């Protein structure tokens, strides 16, 4: 059993557009669905893993029968989690039969093990999803909208807006205050006298009170 924990040595080196699958899947509908859209290589001894994708991602498949049978798959997933630092995606067959077990399984895989769980209805759906995962992993990082570095906001406009949140301060006063003090930090530390040089006495006191008011 312990030997079975080993995860394929070159797993991180699956080339773009490729999938390395376990030999036991030969002839399956899942493999037939993959062939063509991705380059599939079947190998013996992938141990716990069913498919290796590019970028150190791999798929562990849990069939309807595995789910219904109970704890076997849990042991396998926990073993994988402690034995490897690969990005493990668990694909589970969610059918009318296995549906009732899904919430508990999701809790275990996602919340306890911290892995990804993606339900599929059958092997065909799994092959379609794997194709999309391979495409995603093969693309440039910047093509993923959630990995793109966002451009910085207009800081000066934001600062003006922040200062306008002070009670009694509109846009004109905010501009005058910032021109005089230069930054929010300086403005926070201004004395009433200094503030009075820019705005009227009442507002100066109001601003001072706003900054220094404690609970």
């Amino acid at each position, binding site marked *: 059993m312990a030997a079975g924990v080993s995860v394929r040595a070159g797993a991180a080196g699956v080339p773009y557009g490729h999938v390395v699958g376990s030999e036991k899947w030969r002839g399956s509908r899942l493999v037939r669905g993959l062939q063509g859209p991705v380059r599939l290589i079947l190998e013996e001894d992938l141990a716990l893993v069913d498919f290796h994708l590019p970028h150190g991602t791999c798929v562990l498949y849990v069939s309807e029968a595995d789910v219904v049978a109970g704890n076997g798959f849990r042991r396998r997933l926990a073993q994988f989690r402690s034995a490897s630092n690969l990005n493990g995606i668990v694909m589970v067959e969610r059918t009318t039969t296995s549906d009732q077990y899904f919430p508990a399984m999701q809790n275990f895989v996602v919340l306890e093990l911290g892995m990804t769980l993606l339900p599929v209805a059958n092997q065909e759906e799994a092959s379609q999803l794997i194709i999309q995962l391979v495409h995603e992993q093969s693309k440039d990082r910047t093509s993923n909208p959630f990995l793109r570095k966002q451009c910085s906001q207009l800081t000066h406009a*934001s600062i003006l807006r922040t200062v306008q949140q002070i009670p009694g301060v509109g846009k004109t006063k905010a501009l005058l205050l910032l021109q005089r003090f230069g930054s929010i930090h300086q403005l926070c530390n201004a004395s009433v006298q200094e503030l009075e040089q820019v705005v009227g006495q009442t507002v100066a006191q109001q601003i001072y009170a706003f900054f220094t008011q404690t609970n």
Partner: protein
Amino acid sequence: MPASSRLLETEAPLCILVDSREISSGSEIISSLKAVHEIKVQVCSLGGCDYIVSNRLVVERKFQSELLNNTNRSKLIQRIQHLQSMFERICVIVEKDRIKAGEALRQLHRTKHYDGMLSAFVRAGIRILFSSCQEETAKLLKDLALVERRKKAAIAVPPEVSSPKQDALRFYLSIPNISHLTALNMCHRFGSVKMMANSSLKDIAAGAQVSQQKAEEIYRYIRYGFDPQMLPENLNTNGKSSTSMAKC
């Protein structure tokens, strides 16, 4: 950790902030969180966040149908990017669409776009959870809040502020890329706005309960040298501003 403080920690009720927009589409989630899971729910305007579950985790709730095709894509991307600017962790709960009375049970017709969106989430480290109804979504939110509490990230300040502090809350909320919860933390943890502004990086991180990186952003923003020349045209010159000029 001494046993007594651990006991205290488990006794404090879990708290989740819920965006007021969820009242219409997720009323059962809110009532289930309160009644079944005994969670302190604060409904308020969260500016684009559906559920704030901890100091670092936000949950976006999506119907399955919204991920099936292109129509909602750009809106969804914008929303998630907005969340990414504020939170360290994002979880998307994919909820089955409600079946209207009299409608036959529909099987999910899975699309390439759906699988593509899931793949993009996975690659970007965005967590995905699946729910078949609002009650289940509520359970998932609670489970997430429990995990976050174990990781010492639970919401630990009162979710509301007294009226004199409302102004300070608004002030903090105007800092770019700050979540409602971060602003709340600042309100409760800093004696005054001045004290916050004079805090060290470490104190900002501890007080606002944010990452080192976010603390640096806040620290820099507070000290950023303002230059009116750098304002966008519409803010600096006439147009709308001329009216406000007259008012002041």
